[in-house]
């Protein structure tokens, strides 16, 4: 189609409606922010690039342009610090792209016979739609701005434990003795926690984000989440102060939104990442030298472990246990060592399914782990291609 500039803009605004409706239905600020970002980027591309470069736009170009815009939206999302779960964010983008195709090729031409010859302009309906989308987005973003949690910047070292009972964003600094989170919509960014029983202790909260948090020298858990929905990105947990420390423990959170642990480095703890009765996406982490299990997905959890690297785990690299259902794919497990207690389940097993658990495994790399991939005690392992 040969779009006019007005046609591009009106079609873009009209096509964003389904994604915007979805974002509003999700009741999440990040979703509205994401749609606004998609729209602003798209409009900028329309005005600055597409209108000049594409006097005629063939249908097939929708795919490469859509992928290019997806990349830009992702980068802009990261740059703007929009805390969106990636799968949902991609889902919203996908809805936006797909609805643009369906609307542009099927619905708009039916609603407005001259849609194509008008260069994508929607007429009076388009102006009204554009106004409605604009008002909704401005109102949504305005509301998000008005009720945004306060941001607290820490400078130097603060003596904890620091207790957070309201939505807020905590940035920077060092906290001694741990952080306790008892509220939803809390973000901790670029904070180092030293000492305490739990580095970060989260209970009964949703939409908690830990971004670039370092935890050192704790005695029980680096990060503990109980009945919570948390997003943990690029954390570092090391130098445990006892032999009982779990790096990250997420438990009894099945009723909360799915949690995610990605890009973390955990070294020298008893367990690296452990889940119990939760839904967690464990992705792209580096777990080193654990003394009990590298990654534990347990107690009726429904988890995914993908693209993790588990090195030098004593006994077990990754375990799916106790009635859990686990997707274990594209992980690398190297140097799992035999635990000397003669227990066959701890003989340097790289991936293990245990006690009525169901593990689906695919494309994992196992190196120098004598136990290989095994199932014990009425559990199953299903190999996928």
């Amino acid at each position, binding site marked *: 189609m*040969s779009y*006019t500039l007005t046609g591009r803009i009106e079609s873009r605004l009209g096509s964003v409606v389904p994604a915007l409706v979805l974002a509003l239905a999700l009741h999440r600020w990040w979703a509205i922010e994401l749609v606004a970002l998609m729209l602003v980027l798209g409009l900028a591309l329309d005005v600055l690039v597409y209108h000049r470069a594409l*006097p*005629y736009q063939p*249908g097939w170009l929708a795919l490469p342009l859509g992928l290019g815009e997806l990349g830009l939206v992702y980068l802009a999302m990261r740059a703007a610090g929009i805390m969106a779960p990636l799968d949902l964010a991609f889902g919203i983008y996908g809805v936006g792209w797909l609805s643009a195709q369906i609307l542009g090729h099927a619905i708009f*031409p039916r609603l407005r*016979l001259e849609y*194509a010859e*008008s*260069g994508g302009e929607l007429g009076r309906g388009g102006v009204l739609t554009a106004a409605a989308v604009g008002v909704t987005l401005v109102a949504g973003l305005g509301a998000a701005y008005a009720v945004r949690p306060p941001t607290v910047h820490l400078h130097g070292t603060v003596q904890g434990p620091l207790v957070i009972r309201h939505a807020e964003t905590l940035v920077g600094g060092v906290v001694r003795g741990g952080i306790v989170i008892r509220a939803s919509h809390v973000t901790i960014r670029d904070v180092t926690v030293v000492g305490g029983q739990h580095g970060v202790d989260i209970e009964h909260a949703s939409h908690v984000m830990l971004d670039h948090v370092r935890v050192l020298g704790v005695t029980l858990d680096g990060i503990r989440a109980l009945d919570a929905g948390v997003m943990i990105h690029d954390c570092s947990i090391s130098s445990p102060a006892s032999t009982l420390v779990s790096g990250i423990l997420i438990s009894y959170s099945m009723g909360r939104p799915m949690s995610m642990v990605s890009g973390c480095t955990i070294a020298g703890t008893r367990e690296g990442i452990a889940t119990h009765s939760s839904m967690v996406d464990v992705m792209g982490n580096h777990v080193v030298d654990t003394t009990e299990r590298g990654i534990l997905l347990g107690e009726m959890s429904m988890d995914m472990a993908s693209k993790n690297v588990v090195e030098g785990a004593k006994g077990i690299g990754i375990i799916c246990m106790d009635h859990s259902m686990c997707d274990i794919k594209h992980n690398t497990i190297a140097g799992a060592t035999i635990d000397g207690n003669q227990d066959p389940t701890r003989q340097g097993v790289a991936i293990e399914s245990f006690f009525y658990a169901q593990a689906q495994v695919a494309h994992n790399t196992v190196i120098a782990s004598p136990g290989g991939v095994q199932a014990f005690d009425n559990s199953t392992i299903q190999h996928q291609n």
Partner: protein
Amino acid sequence: MEPTRRCAIVGSGLAALAAYATLRHGGLASNEIAVLGTHEDPTEVWRVRAAAIRQRQMRSESDGHLAAAAFPGLAVRELVRTGSLRPMVATVANRYHPSVEAFLAHAQDVRRRTGWSQSFTERRVGRITAREGGFELDGDGPFAHVLVATGHPGLSRPGEFSGAVHAYEPHEYASRIAIVGAGMAAATEWLNALAAGSEVVSIRRREPLRRPLNVPRTFFSKRGLGAYHSLSNEQRAAKLRELAAASFPPGPAWDEPLAQAEREGRFRVELVPNGAEQVICATGFKRGFQEDPLLARLVTDNGLATFGRWIVLEPDSTIPTLTDNSRTLSLAGVAAQWAFPAADTIAGAKYSARAFLRRICRTR
């Protein structure tokens, strides 16, 4: 005085059917529209011509059909009919061209669904007379809104080949043929004659352009039309002459058989028939409103503005001096090129039809 009837379509070809379908889609009842033409089957004239040049595929794409709304196009219909995704893949790459058979079957479907026959009266209109609030058609009427879609005014044959068969007339192929012209029909005839085992001499004044559609794609939408409508009369006429240059689509389906025949000495370009047994004129149609008796009389009777061979029209295909708040006189088909350069295509027919519908809706 008779009460003013709603609207009339003068002509009964593809453009007339496209207009009729658009008006029906826009909510007009069959008894509000009179169709006055020479053929009850709107595809008849076109079908005979397509058969004469053995055309099997349309030059138009998925949305080149006669239904009012572009969606679902012929590619989607083929997907539904055959279950094959191939037409959809082809259409996103602008490589889908429906078969003539599919196009005609769909046209008949549109004709049946819209109730065309209920509005059709077999009559050749000889004169359109402007009256207050409408127009009389050979004394019948008045009609408040009239769309003239009389089509091409006849086949064109260069004087020196006046006795030759025209490509759009039924014909067979002799063993040595001269084909005059360089457009889509000529290119189709080259391939037909070569496939029939003939030796072909192409007689042409200039090299044909290679273009997927009749005119560049931007001229099918407001983006190109905006600039076109802002041209002066002289510039617009020059642009139309430029766009009228002979062309046929690029692609190996055309190039390979011609290159092969050239290597075998069975295809060459010359200035004269040079001993050919048969001359086929693939030289298209007569051009200009002067060649159409109805339009020529309309111009004379009403002193309409013209430029060269074109009647000067508003961008919405209406004749400015005969269109006001209460009545519309609009042209569709090739006569509407002043408003839409590709007016002789299906897209052009729909362009005029939609503008006509908008005017009717506005004056309701």
